[in-house]
Protein backbone atom coordinates (compact mmCIF):
# COMPACT_ATOMS: atom_id res chain seq x y z
CA UNK A 1 0.00 0.00 0.00
CA UNK A 2 1.14 3.48 -0.74
CA UNK A 3 0.10 6.88 0.42
CA UNK A 4 -0.27 9.55 -2.19
CA UNK A 5 0.12 12.92 -0.57
CA UNK A 6 -0.73 15.71 -2.96
CA UNK A 7 -0.28 19.40 -2.25
CA UNK A 8 -2.13 21.67 -4.66
CA UNK A 9 -4.15 24.83 -5.09
CA UNK A 10 -7.40 24.96 -3.11
CA UNK A 11 -9.41 25.84 -6.19
CA UNK A 12 -8.37 22.58 -7.85
CA UNK A 13 -10.03 20.47 -5.18
CA UNK A 14 -13.24 20.08 -7.09
CA UNK A 15 -11.70 18.75 -10.34
CA UNK A 16 -9.34 16.52 -8.38
CA UNK A 17 -12.22 14.99 -6.47
CA UNK A 18 -14.13 14.43 -9.68
CA UNK A 19 -11.24 12.59 -11.29
CA UNK A 20 -10.64 10.49 -8.19
CA UNK A 21 -14.33 9.73 -7.98
CA UNK A 22 -14.23 8.36 -11.49
CA UNK A 23 -11.35 6.10 -10.49
CA UNK A 24 -13.42 4.79 -7.63
CA UNK A 25 -11.17 6.25 -4.96
CA UNK A 26 -13.47 8.28 -2.87
CA UNK A 27 -11.65 7.49 0.39
CA UNK A 28 -9.58 10.60 0.91
CA UNK A 29 -8.53 12.92 3.67
CA UNK A 30 -7.88 16.59 3.10
CA UNK A 31 -6.17 19.16 5.24
CA UNK A 32 -5.88 22.88 4.88
CA UNK A 33 -2.19 23.69 4.85
CA UNK A 34 -0.02 26.61 3.90
CA UNK A 35 2.88 26.30 1.55
CA UNK A 36 5.91 28.12 0.40
CA UNK A 37 7.98 27.12 -2.56
CA UNK A 38 9.04 28.63 -5.84
CA UNK A 39 5.84 30.62 -5.58
CA UNK A 40 6.78 33.42 -3.27
CA UNK A 41 3.77 34.78 -1.43
CA UNK A 42 1.94 37.99 -2.06
CA UNK A 43 2.06 41.56 -0.85
CA UNK A 44 -0.95 43.31 0.59
CA UNK A 45 -1.55 46.83 1.77
CA UNK A 46 -2.90 47.72 5.19
CA UNK A 47 -3.48 51.38 5.91
CA UNK A 48 -0.62 52.51 3.77
CA UNK A 49 1.92 49.92 4.86
CA UNK A 50 2.78 46.88 2.81
CA UNK A 51 2.97 43.45 4.29
CA UNK A 52 3.87 40.12 2.82
CA UNK A 53 1.98 36.91 3.23
CA UNK A 54 4.72 34.33 2.68
CA UNK A 55 2.56 31.26 2.98
CA UNK A 56 -0.19 30.59 0.53
CA UNK A 57 -3.10 28.30 1.21
CA UNK A 58 -2.82 24.84 -0.27
CA UNK A 59 -4.81 21.68 0.05
CA UNK A 60 -3.08 18.55 1.24
CA UNK A 61 -4.92 15.51 -0.06
CA UNK A 62 -4.00 12.11 1.27
CA UNK A 63 -5.21 8.91 -0.22
CA UNK A 64 -3.88 5.49 0.58
CA UNK A 65 -4.01 3.18 -2.42
CA UNK A 66 -3.05 -0.30 -3.40
CA UNK A 67 0.32 -0.47 -5.13
CA UNK A 68 -1.23 -1.36 -8.44
CA UNK A 69 -3.43 1.72 -8.45
CA UNK A 70 -0.63 4.13 -7.65
CA UNK A 71 0.02 5.23 -11.21
CA UNK A 72 -3.61 5.85 -12.04
CA UNK A 73 -4.16 7.94 -8.98
CA UNK A 74 -1.02 9.99 -9.38
CA UNK A 75 -1.83 10.66 -13.00
CA UNK A 76 -5.37 11.65 -12.14
CA UNK A 77 -4.18 14.15 -9.60
CA UNK A 78 -1.48 15.58 -11.83
CA UNK A 79 -3.97 15.98 -14.64
CA UNK A 80 -6.69 17.62 -12.60
CA UNK A 81 -4.62 19.76 -10.27
CA UNK A 82 -2.40 21.31 -12.89
CA UNK A 83 -2.83 24.89 -14.03
CA UNK A 84 0.63 25.27 -15.48
CA UNK A 85 1.77 28.17 -13.38
CA UNK A 86 4.19 28.20 -10.49
CA UNK A 87 2.57 27.05 -7.27
CA UNK A 88 0.78 24.02 -8.67
CA UNK A 89 2.31 21.89 -5.97
CA UNK A 90 3.82 18.45 -5.47
CA UNK A 91 2.89 14.86 -4.95
CA UNK A 92 4.87 12.70 -2.54
CA UNK A 93 4.58 8.93 -2.37
CA UNK A 94 5.14 7.02 0.85
CA UNK A 95 5.08 3.42 1.75
CA UNK A 96 2.31 2.32 4.08
CA UNK A 97 3.07 -0.64 6.31
CA UNK A 98 -0.47 -1.44 7.18
CA UNK A 99 -4.01 -0.14 7.26
CA UNK A 100 -6.82 -0.89 9.68
CA UNK A 101 -10.49 -0.06 9.31
CA UNK A 102 -11.65 1.07 12.71
CA UNK A 103 -15.28 0.11 12.21
CA UNK A 104 -14.55 -3.54 11.44
CA UNK A 105 -10.99 -4.08 12.54
CA UNK A 106 -10.14 -5.41 9.07
CA UNK A 107 -6.58 -4.77 8.10
CA UNK A 108 -4.34 -4.77 5.06
CA UNK A 109 -5.75 -4.21 1.59
CA UNK A 110 -9.26 -4.94 2.81
CA UNK A 111 -9.16 -1.83 4.89
CA UNK A 112 -8.71 0.54 2.00
Amino acid at each position, binding site marked *: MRKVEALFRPER*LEPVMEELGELGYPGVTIT*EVKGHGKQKGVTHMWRGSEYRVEFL*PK*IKLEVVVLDEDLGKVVNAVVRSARTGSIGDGKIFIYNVDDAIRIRTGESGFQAI
Partner: protein
Amino acid sequence: MKKVLLVVLITALLLALFATPVLAQGDGEAKTPDSIATDLDTVWVLLAAALVFFMQAGFFFLEGGLTRAKNVANAMLKGVMDFCLGAIIFWMVGFGLMFGLSRGGFVGSSGFFSNLASADWNGLPLYVFLLFQIAFAGAAATILAGGVAERFKFSAYCIATVVITGFIYPVAGHWIWAQGGWLNRLGMLDFAGSTVVHTVGGVCAFVGAWMVGARVGKYNPDRSANAIPGHNIPMAALGTFILWLGWYGFNPGSLLKASPAIATIAMTTTLSAAAGATMAMLITWGRYGKPDVSMSLNGALAGLVAVTAGCAYVSPVSALIIGIVAGILVVFSVEFIDHKVRVDDPVGAVSVHMVNGIWGTIAVGLFAQASFGQANGVAAVDGLFFGGGLAQLGKQLLGSASVVAWVAVTAGLMFFILKKTIGIRVDEEGQRVGLDLHEHDIEAYPDFQPAISEKGVS
Protein backbone atom coordinates in the same frame (compact mmCIF):
# COMPACT_ATOMS: atom_id res chain seq x y z
CA MET B 1 8.10 74.49 14.85
CA LYS B 2 8.90 76.22 18.13
CA LYS B 3 9.03 79.63 16.49
CA VAL B 4 5.75 79.15 14.76
CA LEU B 5 4.16 78.23 18.05
CA LEU B 6 5.63 81.27 19.73
CA VAL B 7 4.37 83.61 17.03
CA VAL B 8 0.99 82.01 17.17
CA LEU B 9 0.83 82.34 20.91
CA ILE B 10 1.85 85.96 20.93
CA THR B 11 -0.48 86.91 18.10
CA ALA B 12 -3.25 85.13 19.85
CA LEU B 13 -2.58 86.84 23.12
CA LEU B 14 -2.57 90.25 21.46
CA LEU B 15 -5.74 89.43 19.62
CA ALA B 16 -7.27 88.24 22.81
CA LEU B 17 -6.55 91.51 24.54
CA PHE B 18 -8.44 93.53 22.00
CA ALA B 19 -11.08 91.04 21.16
CA THR B 20 -14.69 91.61 22.05
CA PRO B 21 -15.78 88.14 22.93
CA VAL B 22 -19.01 87.22 21.20
CA LEU B 23 -20.77 85.05 23.68
CA ALA B 24 -23.58 82.76 22.83
CA GLN B 25 -26.78 84.70 22.98
CA GLY B 26 -29.51 83.29 25.11
CA ASP B 27 -32.57 82.98 22.95
CA GLY B 28 -34.47 85.58 24.85
CA GLU B 29 -37.69 85.10 22.94
CA ALA B 30 -40.49 83.63 25.00
CA LYS B 31 -41.56 80.09 24.19
CA THR B 32 -44.94 79.78 22.53
CA PRO B 33 -46.89 76.60 21.96
CA ASP B 34 -46.16 76.90 18.26
CA SER B 35 -42.43 77.37 18.70
CA ILE B 36 -42.29 74.45 21.09
CA ALA B 37 -44.26 72.32 18.67
CA THR B 38 -41.68 73.09 16.02
CA ASP B 39 -38.86 72.28 18.42
CA LEU B 40 -40.54 69.02 19.26
CA ASP B 41 -41.12 68.11 15.63
CA THR B 42 -37.48 68.89 14.96
CA VAL B 43 -36.28 66.63 17.74
CA TRP B 44 -38.58 63.85 16.69
CA VAL B 45 -37.73 63.94 13.00
CA LEU B 46 -34.04 64.33 13.74
CA LEU B 47 -34.03 61.26 15.94
CA ALA B 48 -36.11 59.41 13.37
CA ALA B 49 -33.56 60.40 10.74
CA ALA B 50 -30.75 59.13 12.96
CA LEU B 51 -32.53 55.78 13.28
CA VAL B 52 -33.04 55.58 9.54
CA PHE B 53 -29.39 56.52 9.03
CA PHE B 54 -28.42 53.61 11.28
CA MET B 55 -30.37 51.27 9.01
CA GLN B 56 -27.37 51.49 6.69
CA ALA B 57 -25.46 49.43 9.20
CA GLY B 58 -28.39 47.04 9.32
CA PHE B 59 -28.29 46.67 5.56
CA PHE B 60 -24.58 46.04 5.33
CA PHE B 61 -24.61 43.64 8.26
CA LEU B 62 -27.51 41.71 6.76
CA GLU B 63 -25.78 41.53 3.39
CA GLY B 64 -22.44 40.67 4.93
CA GLY B 65 -23.88 37.97 7.13
CA LEU B 66 -25.80 36.27 4.34
CA THR B 67 -22.86 36.15 1.96
CA ARG B 68 -19.36 34.70 2.14
CA ALA B 69 -16.49 35.77 4.33
CA LYS B 70 -14.32 36.61 1.36
CA ASN B 71 -16.67 39.40 0.25
CA VAL B 72 -17.64 40.94 3.54
CA ALA B 73 -15.28 43.90 3.58
CA ASN B 74 -16.62 44.82 0.16
CA ALA B 75 -20.15 44.65 1.55
CA MET B 76 -19.11 46.98 4.36
CA LEU B 77 -17.54 49.55 2.08
CA LYS B 78 -20.48 49.48 -0.32
CA GLY B 79 -22.78 50.20 2.59
CA VAL B 80 -20.62 53.01 3.89
CA MET B 81 -20.03 54.63 0.55
CA ASP B 82 -23.54 54.46 -0.81
CA PHE B 83 -24.63 56.50 2.15
CA CYS B 84 -21.75 58.94 1.89
CA LEU B 85 -22.02 59.44 -1.85
CA GLY B 86 -25.79 59.37 -1.64
CA ALA B 87 -25.88 62.01 1.08
CA ILE B 88 -23.74 64.40 -0.91
CA ILE B 89 -25.51 63.83 -4.22
CA PHE B 90 -28.98 63.90 -2.73
CA TRP B 91 -28.19 67.17 -0.99
CA MET B 92 -26.78 68.54 -4.23
CA VAL B 93 -29.41 67.47 -6.73
CA GLY B 94 -31.68 64.67 -5.54
CA PHE B 95 -33.56 66.72 -3.02
CA GLY B 96 -34.32 69.43 -5.56
CA LEU B 97 -35.54 66.92 -8.11
CA MET B 98 -37.70 65.24 -5.50
CA PHE B 99 -39.20 68.07 -3.52
CA GLY B 100 -38.49 71.16 -5.60
CA LEU B 101 -41.11 73.07 -7.51
CA SER B 102 -42.85 70.51 -9.65
CA ARG B 103 -42.44 70.56 -13.39
CA GLY B 104 -45.61 68.94 -14.66
CA GLY B 105 -45.86 66.59 -11.74
CA PHE B 106 -42.89 64.71 -13.06
CA VAL B 107 -39.83 66.23 -11.48
CA GLY B 108 -38.85 68.96 -9.03
CA SER B 109 -36.76 71.91 -10.05
CA SER B 110 -35.57 73.87 -7.04
CA GLY B 111 -33.84 73.47 -3.73
CA PHE B 112 -30.48 72.26 -5.00
CA PHE B 113 -27.33 72.64 -2.88
CA SER B 114 -29.25 74.05 0.11
CA ASN B 115 -26.91 76.31 1.99
CA LEU B 116 -29.13 78.56 4.07
CA ALA B 117 -28.63 79.56 7.66
CA SER B 118 -32.26 78.94 8.38
CA ALA B 119 -34.99 77.60 6.20
CA ASP B 120 -38.26 75.96 6.55
CA TRP B 121 -40.11 73.17 4.84
CA ASN B 122 -43.81 73.15 5.59
CA GLY B 123 -43.24 74.32 9.12
CA LEU B 124 -40.39 71.93 9.75
CA PRO B 125 -36.79 73.15 9.67
CA LEU B 126 -35.60 72.40 6.18
CA TYR B 127 -32.46 70.59 7.25
CA VAL B 128 -34.18 68.06 9.42
CA PHE B 129 -36.49 67.21 6.57
CA LEU B 130 -33.56 67.06 4.20
CA LEU B 131 -31.63 64.83 6.55
CA PHE B 132 -34.58 62.50 6.90
CA GLN B 133 -34.83 62.35 3.13
CA ILE B 134 -31.10 61.75 2.75
CA ALA B 135 -31.40 58.76 5.02
CA PHE B 136 -34.28 57.49 2.90
CA ALA B 137 -32.34 57.96 -0.30
CA GLY B 138 -29.47 56.03 1.25
CA ALA B 139 -31.83 53.18 2.11
CA ALA B 140 -33.25 53.06 -1.41
CA ALA B 141 -29.75 52.94 -2.87
CA THR B 142 -28.29 50.37 -0.53
CA ILE B 143 -30.96 47.80 -1.29
CA LEU B 144 -29.12 47.26 -4.55
CA ALA B 145 -26.03 46.17 -2.65
CA GLY B 146 -27.58 42.96 -1.39
CA GLY B 147 -28.99 41.94 -4.75
CA VAL B 148 -25.71 42.27 -6.60
CA ALA B 149 -23.54 41.09 -3.74
CA GLU B 150 -20.35 39.07 -4.26
CA ARG B 151 -19.78 39.93 -7.93
CA PHE B 152 -20.40 43.59 -8.69
CA LYS B 153 -17.48 45.89 -9.45
CA PHE B 154 -17.02 48.43 -6.71
CA SER B 155 -16.37 51.30 -9.08
CA ALA B 156 -19.58 50.61 -10.99
CA TYR B 157 -21.42 50.28 -7.72
CA CYS B 158 -20.36 53.76 -6.67
CA ILE B 159 -21.60 55.23 -9.91
CA ALA B 160 -24.89 53.34 -9.70
CA THR B 161 -25.38 54.72 -6.21
CA VAL B 162 -24.88 58.23 -7.46
CA VAL B 163 -27.37 57.76 -10.29
CA ILE B 164 -29.98 56.18 -8.04
CA THR B 165 -29.83 58.78 -5.27
CA GLY B 166 -29.34 61.65 -7.70
CA PHE B 167 -31.91 60.78 -10.31
CA ILE B 168 -33.85 57.50 -10.34
CA TYR B 169 -35.07 57.63 -6.77
CA PRO B 170 -35.85 61.36 -6.53
CA VAL B 171 -37.96 61.32 -9.67
CA ALA B 172 -40.04 58.39 -8.48
CA GLY B 173 -40.23 60.04 -5.09
CA HIS B 174 -41.44 63.27 -6.65
CA TRP B 175 -44.35 61.52 -8.30
CA ILE B 176 -45.68 60.20 -5.03
CA TRP B 177 -44.44 62.42 -2.23
CA ALA B 178 -44.08 65.90 -3.69
CA GLN B 179 -47.05 68.24 -3.36
CA GLY B 180 -47.45 68.42 -7.11
CA GLY B 181 -46.34 64.93 -8.05
CA TRP B 182 -48.73 63.32 -10.51
CA LEU B 183 -49.36 60.20 -8.46
CA ASN B 184 -49.72 62.27 -5.34
CA ARG B 185 -52.34 64.42 -7.00
CA LEU B 186 -54.07 61.32 -8.24
CA GLY B 187 -54.39 60.18 -4.64
CA MET B 188 -52.05 57.24 -4.69
CA LEU B 189 -51.01 56.54 -1.10
CA ASP B 190 -47.60 55.38 0.00
CA PHE B 191 -47.19 56.61 3.52
CA ALA B 192 -43.59 55.78 4.27
CA GLY B 193 -42.32 54.35 1.05
CA SER B 194 -43.20 50.74 0.20
CA THR B 195 -43.07 52.02 -3.35
CA VAL B 196 -40.87 55.08 -3.12
CA VAL B 197 -38.07 53.43 -1.24
CA HIS B 198 -38.51 49.68 -1.32
CA THR B 199 -39.94 49.07 -4.74
CA VAL B 200 -37.42 51.48 -6.21
CA GLY B 201 -34.55 49.80 -4.41
CA GLY B 202 -35.91 46.33 -5.06
CA VAL B 203 -36.33 46.86 -8.78
CA CYS B 204 -32.80 48.28 -8.99
CA ALA B 205 -31.60 45.16 -7.19
CA PHE B 206 -33.56 42.92 -9.53
CA VAL B 207 -32.38 44.56 -12.71
CA GLY B 208 -28.84 44.81 -11.39
CA ALA B 209 -28.71 41.19 -10.27
CA TRP B 210 -30.07 40.09 -13.58
CA MET B 211 -27.69 42.16 -15.67
CA VAL B 212 -24.56 41.39 -13.71
CA GLY B 213 -25.32 37.69 -13.94
CA ALA B 214 -25.25 35.06 -11.26
CA ARG B 215 -22.28 34.48 -9.01
CA VAL B 216 -19.75 31.95 -10.26
CA GLY B 217 -20.96 28.58 -9.06
CA LYS B 218 -24.54 29.61 -8.40
CA TYR B 219 -26.13 27.80 -11.33
CA ASN B 220 -25.17 24.47 -12.77
CA PRO B 221 -25.08 23.68 -16.48
CA ASP B 222 -28.40 21.86 -16.02
CA ARG B 223 -29.86 25.17 -14.76
CA SER B 224 -30.30 23.91 -11.22
CA ALA B 225 -29.32 26.26 -8.43
CA ASN B 226 -26.63 25.72 -5.82
CA ALA B 227 -27.00 27.11 -2.35
CA ILE B 228 -24.22 29.45 -1.26
CA PRO B 229 -24.65 29.74 2.49
CA GLY B 230 -24.01 32.99 4.31
CA HIS B 231 -20.97 33.13 6.53
CA ASN B 232 -22.22 34.76 9.70
CA ILE B 233 -25.72 34.27 11.01
CA PRO B 234 -25.41 36.45 14.12
CA MET B 235 -24.27 39.27 11.89
CA ALA B 236 -27.37 38.86 9.75
CA ALA B 237 -29.59 38.72 12.84
CA LEU B 238 -28.13 41.89 14.27
CA GLY B 239 -28.47 43.56 10.89
CA THR B 240 -32.13 42.63 10.82
CA PHE B 241 -32.75 44.04 14.27
CA ILE B 242 -30.90 47.24 13.46
CA LEU B 243 -33.17 47.54 10.43
CA TRP B 244 -36.26 46.89 12.50
CA LEU B 245 -35.12 49.48 15.04
CA GLY B 246 -34.61 51.91 12.20
CA TRP B 247 -38.14 51.29 11.02
CA TYR B 248 -39.38 53.00 14.16
CA GLY B 249 -37.88 56.10 12.63
CA PHE B 250 -38.77 55.21 9.06
CA ASN B 251 -42.51 54.72 9.47
CA PRO B 252 -43.67 56.93 12.34
CA GLY B 253 -41.05 59.49 11.40
CA SER B 254 -42.65 59.83 7.99
CA LEU B 255 -45.52 61.70 9.61
CA LEU B 256 -42.90 64.43 9.96
CA LYS B 257 -44.37 65.64 13.19
CA ALA B 258 -44.98 64.57 16.73
CA SER B 259 -48.54 63.47 17.33
CA PRO B 260 -50.36 60.56 18.89
CA ALA B 261 -50.59 59.11 15.38
CA ILE B 262 -46.98 57.98 15.56
CA ALA B 263 -48.04 55.53 18.22
CA THR B 264 -50.57 53.87 15.95
CA ILE B 265 -48.07 53.80 13.11
CA ALA B 266 -45.44 52.17 15.29
CA MET B 267 -48.02 49.64 16.42
CA THR B 268 -49.05 48.55 12.94
CA THR B 269 -45.38 48.41 12.01
CA THR B 270 -44.59 46.11 14.90
CA LEU B 271 -47.45 43.72 14.33
CA SER B 272 -46.74 43.33 10.65
CA ALA B 273 -43.07 42.63 11.27
CA ALA B 274 -43.86 40.11 13.98
CA ALA B 275 -46.42 38.41 11.76
CA GLY B 276 -44.03 38.30 8.83
CA ALA B 277 -41.29 36.61 10.83
CA THR B 278 -43.73 34.19 12.41
CA MET B 279 -45.21 33.15 9.09
CA ALA B 280 -41.84 32.75 7.39
CA MET B 281 -40.70 30.60 10.29
CA LEU B 282 -43.81 28.45 10.20
CA ILE B 283 -43.76 27.99 6.45
CA THR B 284 -40.11 27.04 6.30
CA TRP B 285 -40.74 24.69 9.21
CA GLY B 286 -43.44 23.03 7.19
CA ARG B 287 -41.63 23.04 3.86
CA TYR B 288 -38.05 22.29 4.87
CA GLY B 289 -38.71 20.34 8.04
CA LYS B 290 -37.01 22.82 10.33
CA PRO B 291 -37.57 26.48 11.09
CA ASP B 292 -35.18 28.43 8.91
CA VAL B 293 -33.22 31.23 10.53
CA SER B 294 -32.35 33.45 7.60
CA MET B 295 -35.82 33.18 6.11
CA SER B 296 -37.40 34.18 9.40
CA LEU B 297 -35.19 37.23 9.41
CA ASN B 298 -36.30 37.99 5.87
CA GLY B 299 -39.88 37.44 7.02
CA ALA B 300 -39.63 40.20 9.60
CA LEU B 301 -38.22 42.54 6.98
CA ALA B 302 -40.90 41.53 4.50
CA GLY B 303 -43.55 42.43 7.05
CA LEU B 304 -41.87 45.75 7.66
CA VAL B 305 -41.60 46.60 3.98
CA ALA B 306 -45.19 45.59 3.32
CA VAL B 307 -46.69 47.68 6.08
CA THR B 308 -44.62 50.72 5.17
CA ALA B 309 -47.09 52.07 2.63
CA GLY B 310 -50.12 51.48 4.80
CA CYS B 311 -48.90 51.88 8.36
CA ALA B 312 -50.86 55.10 8.87
CA TYR B 313 -54.01 53.97 7.04
CA VAL B 314 -54.67 50.48 8.36
CA SER B 315 -55.75 48.97 11.63
CA PRO B 316 -53.52 46.76 13.79
CA VAL B 317 -55.52 43.71 12.72
CA SER B 318 -55.07 44.60 9.07
CA ALA B 319 -51.37 45.16 9.69
CA LEU B 320 -51.16 41.68 11.13
CA ILE B 321 -52.75 40.27 7.99
CA ILE B 322 -50.48 42.31 5.74
CA GLY B 323 -47.53 40.90 7.64
CA ILE B 324 -48.83 37.36 7.40
CA VAL B 325 -49.12 37.65 3.64
CA ALA B 326 -45.68 39.23 3.47
CA GLY B 327 -44.16 36.37 5.43
CA ILE B 328 -45.69 33.87 3.04
CA LEU B 329 -44.78 35.85 -0.05
CA VAL B 330 -41.15 36.23 0.87
CA VAL B 331 -40.51 32.50 1.23
CA PHE B 332 -42.12 31.55 -2.04
CA SER B 333 -40.64 34.53 -3.83
CA VAL B 334 -37.11 33.63 -2.74
CA GLU B 335 -37.58 30.11 -4.02
CA PHE B 336 -39.24 31.29 -7.22
CA ILE B 337 -36.58 33.82 -8.08
CA ASP B 338 -33.82 31.37 -7.23
CA HIS B 339 -35.18 28.35 -9.06
CA LYS B 340 -37.50 29.63 -11.75
CA VAL B 341 -36.52 33.16 -12.63
CA ARG B 342 -32.90 32.22 -12.02
CA VAL B 343 -31.80 35.64 -10.98
CA ASP B 344 -29.17 35.32 -8.30
CA ASP B 345 -30.19 37.46 -5.33
CA PRO B 346 -27.91 36.41 -2.46
CA VAL B 347 -29.81 38.08 0.35
CA GLY B 348 -33.38 38.08 -0.91
CA ALA B 349 -33.38 41.81 -1.61
CA VAL B 350 -35.82 41.44 -4.48
CA SER B 351 -38.23 39.29 -2.53
CA VAL B 352 -38.13 41.50 0.51
CA HIS B 353 -38.12 44.93 -1.08
CA MET B 354 -39.58 44.64 -4.56
CA VAL B 355 -42.16 41.92 -4.07
CA ASN B 356 -43.28 43.12 -0.68
CA GLY B 357 -42.96 46.75 -1.66
CA ILE B 358 -45.53 46.03 -4.38
CA TRP B 359 -47.64 43.94 -2.03
CA GLY B 360 -47.61 46.66 0.59
CA THR B 361 -48.64 49.28 -1.92
CA ILE B 362 -51.51 47.15 -3.13
CA ALA B 363 -52.49 46.35 0.45
CA VAL B 364 -53.33 50.00 1.02
CA GLY B 365 -56.01 49.65 -1.63
CA LEU B 366 -57.38 46.66 0.23
CA PHE B 367 -57.01 47.45 3.92
CA ALA B 368 -57.08 51.23 4.25
CA GLN B 369 -59.71 52.52 6.64
CA ALA B 370 -60.85 56.09 6.63
CA SER B 371 -61.21 56.01 10.40
CA PHE B 372 -57.56 55.22 10.86
CA GLY B 373 -56.30 57.65 8.28
CA GLN B 374 -58.42 60.37 9.80
CA ALA B 375 -57.38 59.65 13.35
CA ASN B 376 -53.78 59.80 12.21
CA GLY B 377 -54.37 63.09 10.42
CA VAL B 378 -53.53 61.69 7.01
CA ALA B 379 -55.71 60.66 4.06
CA ALA B 380 -59.08 59.22 4.99
CA VAL B 381 -59.67 56.48 2.49
CA ASP B 382 -61.43 53.15 2.61
CA GLY B 383 -59.90 50.23 0.80
CA LEU B 384 -61.66 47.42 -1.01
CA PHE B 385 -62.15 45.33 2.12
CA PHE B 386 -63.65 48.23 3.99
CA GLY B 387 -66.25 49.27 1.53
CA GLY B 388 -64.15 51.68 -0.48
CA GLY B 389 -64.49 49.78 -3.73
CA LEU B 390 -61.79 49.52 -6.32
CA ALA B 391 -60.93 53.20 -6.59
CA GLN B 392 -57.99 53.28 -4.26
CA LEU B 393 -56.79 49.88 -5.35
CA GLY B 394 -56.60 51.10 -8.91
CA LYS B 395 -54.55 54.08 -7.94
CA GLN B 396 -52.21 51.90 -5.96
CA LEU B 397 -51.75 49.52 -8.84
CA LEU B 398 -51.15 52.34 -11.22
CA GLY B 399 -48.65 53.94 -8.89
CA SER B 400 -46.78 50.74 -8.28
CA ALA B 401 -46.73 49.78 -11.94
CA SER B 402 -45.56 53.21 -13.02
CA VAL B 403 -42.70 53.21 -10.58
CA VAL B 404 -41.70 49.68 -11.48
CA ALA B 405 -41.65 50.69 -15.11
CA TRP B 406 -39.72 53.88 -14.45
CA VAL B 407 -37.05 52.16 -12.42
CA ALA B 408 -36.80 49.13 -14.66
CA VAL B 409 -36.15 51.35 -17.65
CA THR B 410 -33.79 53.85 -16.08
CA ALA B 411 -31.89 51.36 -13.97
CA GLY B 412 -31.71 48.98 -16.92
CA LEU B 413 -30.23 51.72 -19.04
CA MET B 414 -27.81 52.69 -16.33
CA PHE B 415 -26.54 49.15 -15.85
CA PHE B 416 -26.35 48.68 -19.60
CA ILE B 417 -24.18 51.74 -20.05
CA LEU B 418 -22.00 50.78 -17.10
CA LYS B 419 -21.62 47.31 -18.51
CA LYS B 420 -20.55 48.59 -21.88
CA THR B 421 -18.13 51.10 -20.44
CA ILE B 422 -16.32 50.32 -17.21
CA GLY B 423 -17.94 46.93 -16.76
CA ILE B 424 -20.03 45.77 -13.84
CA ARG B 425 -18.91 42.21 -13.21
CA VAL B 426 -15.91 40.97 -11.31
CA ASP B 427 -14.38 38.19 -13.37
CA GLU B 428 -14.28 34.54 -12.36
CA GLU B 429 -10.82 34.72 -10.83
CA GLY B 430 -11.76 37.85 -8.87
CA GLN B 431 -14.86 36.17 -7.52
CA ARG B 432 -12.85 33.12 -6.61
CA VAL B 433 -10.35 34.97 -4.50
CA GLY B 434 -13.15 37.18 -3.24
CA LEU B 435 -14.03 40.81 -3.69
CA ASP B 436 -12.23 41.80 -0.52
CA LEU B 437 -8.84 40.94 -1.94
CA HIS B 438 -9.72 41.66 -5.53
CA GLU B 439 -11.38 45.03 -5.07
CA HIS B 440 -9.82 46.29 -1.86
CA ASP B 441 -6.69 44.24 -1.23
CA ILE B 442 -7.91 43.41 2.24
CA GLU B 443 -8.69 40.28 4.19
CA ALA B 444 -11.69 40.77 6.44
CA TYR B 445 -10.70 38.07 8.93
CA PRO B 446 -6.97 37.40 8.61
CA ASP B 447 -6.66 35.82 12.05
CA PHE B 448 -9.16 33.04 11.43
CA GLN B 449 -8.45 29.97 9.41
CA PRO B 450 -10.94 29.63 6.56
CA ALA B 451 -12.82 26.36 6.30
CA ILE B 452 -12.12 24.09 3.39
CA SER B 453 -15.17 24.12 1.22
CA GLU B 454 -16.24 21.79 -1.51
CA LYS B 455 -14.91 24.20 -4.05
CA GLY B 456 -11.62 24.64 -2.24
CA VAL B 457 -11.14 27.31 0.34
CA SER B 458 -14.27 29.40 0.58
